[in-house]
């Protein structure tokens, strides 16, 4: 079994894919803990889609793809905050308007490109096997930045997630911390696009953390167990996609989904053992 799982990772591109996938999976699960507990799944999905025009524009200008995606994801995060704060429309509606509009812009721009749209499609569905050493360095640096913010603002992010009213009453800049968190989500999505693509990135952001929520009772353990579930799905998904010759990103996401339902089932059958 172990040999079966390890054999594919003798190959260089599989090793890079595994390293990249584990990094991406870990960062997604860290940020995903906040996404799950604060009900930001839709926001996360929206930011991922909104990054698409950034990718296309960067491609057209031959600029850095990550930078293009990040600029658009961050701009959308701020836009969602502003539109919903001005009242009139609900945050849900504001998200729907902005992300569909931004994604349409991406599709429109992509349709102007005559050739090689294959490259751009890989950003929609991810291509973890094509991850380069440069990509690994970028993912590593951005991932470390996300981790640093979470460690440094751990108390404040926990308090504003659990009880924003009392946090504000204590004098914490709750609005700024909310934007900080949306910024982290945007950064995480940019990191994850290469691995699983724009369409599926929300799964990595939500599913491992939701699985961890089922079996933990405190915040930090939920984060750590989420990282473990995420890494397990990445490792097994890559091995599976190698043997079955199927899309790696989709295999990782599906395994993650299976882990969730398996955990849900086990919890249902053995309620006494739940939540350590």
């Amino acid at each position, binding site marked *: 079994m172990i040999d079966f799982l390890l054999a594919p990772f003798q190959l260089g591109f599989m090793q890079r894919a595994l390293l990249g996938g584990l990094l991406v999976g870990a960062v997604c699960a860290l940020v995903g803990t906040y996404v799950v507990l604060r009900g930001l799944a839709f926001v996360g999905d929206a930011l991922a889609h909104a990054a698409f025009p950034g990718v296309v524009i960067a491609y057209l200008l031959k600029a850095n793809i990550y930078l293009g995606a990040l600029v658009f994801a961050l701009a959308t995060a701020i836009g969602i905050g502003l539109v919903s704060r001005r009242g009139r429309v609900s945050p849900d509606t504001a998200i729907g308007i902005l992300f569909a509009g931004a994604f349409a812009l991406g599709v429109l721009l992509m349709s102007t490109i005559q050739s090689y749209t294959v490259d751009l499609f890989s950003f929609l569905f991810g291509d973890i096997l094509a991850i380069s050493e440069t990509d690994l360095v970028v993912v590593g640096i951005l991932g470390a930045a996300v981790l640093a913010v979470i460690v440094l603002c751990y*108390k404040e992010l*926990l*308090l504003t997630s659990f009880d924003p*009213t*009392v946090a504000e*009453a204590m004098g914490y800049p709750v609005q700024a911390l909310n934007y900080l968190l949306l910024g982290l989500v945007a950064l995480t999505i940019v990191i994850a696009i290469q691995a699983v693509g724009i369409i599926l990135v929300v799964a990595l952001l939500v599913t491992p953390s939701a699985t961890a929520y089922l079996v933990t*009772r*405190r*915040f930090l353990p939920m984060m750590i167990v989420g990282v473990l579930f995420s890494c397990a799905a990445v490792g097994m998904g890559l091995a599976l996609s190698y043997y079955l010759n199927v899309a790696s990103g989709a295999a990782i996401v599906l395994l993650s989904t299976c882990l969730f339902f398996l955990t849900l089932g086990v919890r249902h059958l053995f309620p006494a053992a739940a939540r350590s």
Partner: protein
Amino acid sequence: MPEKMPWRYCLAVRDLAAGYDGRPAIEGISFGIAPGQMVGVIGPNGAGKSTLFKAILGLIPRHRGEILLHDVDAMGQRALMGYVPQLEQVDRAFPVTVRDVVMMGRYPRIGWLRRPGRADARAVDQALERVELLPLAERRIGELSGGQAQRAFLARVLAQDPHVLLLDEPVSGVDATTQHAIFAVLEALRDGGKTVVVATHDLNCVIERFDQVLCINRRLIAYGPPGEVFREEVLEQTYGNHLMVVRVGDRQVVVADEHKP
């Protein structure tokens, strides 16, 4: 009130108007509370009790007026005010233990970029002890009953150790034992020199336990000791005409007439 009155108050509110959308939900509110007093805030639903608390805490826009903590604008020293909102405000499915929640009260003292130390752990233990939740410290907050959760949030504000405590209906929907336990803690705080402000519906409890009572119905109706304030015309202005003050022996009792709207 005279213009140059010396503000010897712990918490003073002058000519406050506040509310959303530029429309004041409360206005013309002025009062001053000396340290070591327990003040009840009463008024019908929608009278602006919660709004008053939120305005004092800076959670909603203030249109006019001053809020002073020890003679200085309160907004610069918000950690000195402790707030216990109504119970249903937080998501109790959140993965935090009772101890985690109480530790959050220490966060303003600990400050940014630092981790809780031994003194904070001690303060949390003491706060849990005072509300008799120490045996349940490792439970998840969602596993507690309503009354236990309310005591956990009271412990959080104890760990914060503020000068002024604002509690929004802390005893609504909790059992009698919990009510007594909560009031015992609040009275001890008051006796220790804290200013305790409690929004409540229980007028008889106000008569029995509180030093001052603040009657509001969008505006300030009356402010003073319950024995002086609870008169027919004040309650009528506050609640409309379906409340009566009855004397039973040497005690005042407030009776609601359920048949009137």
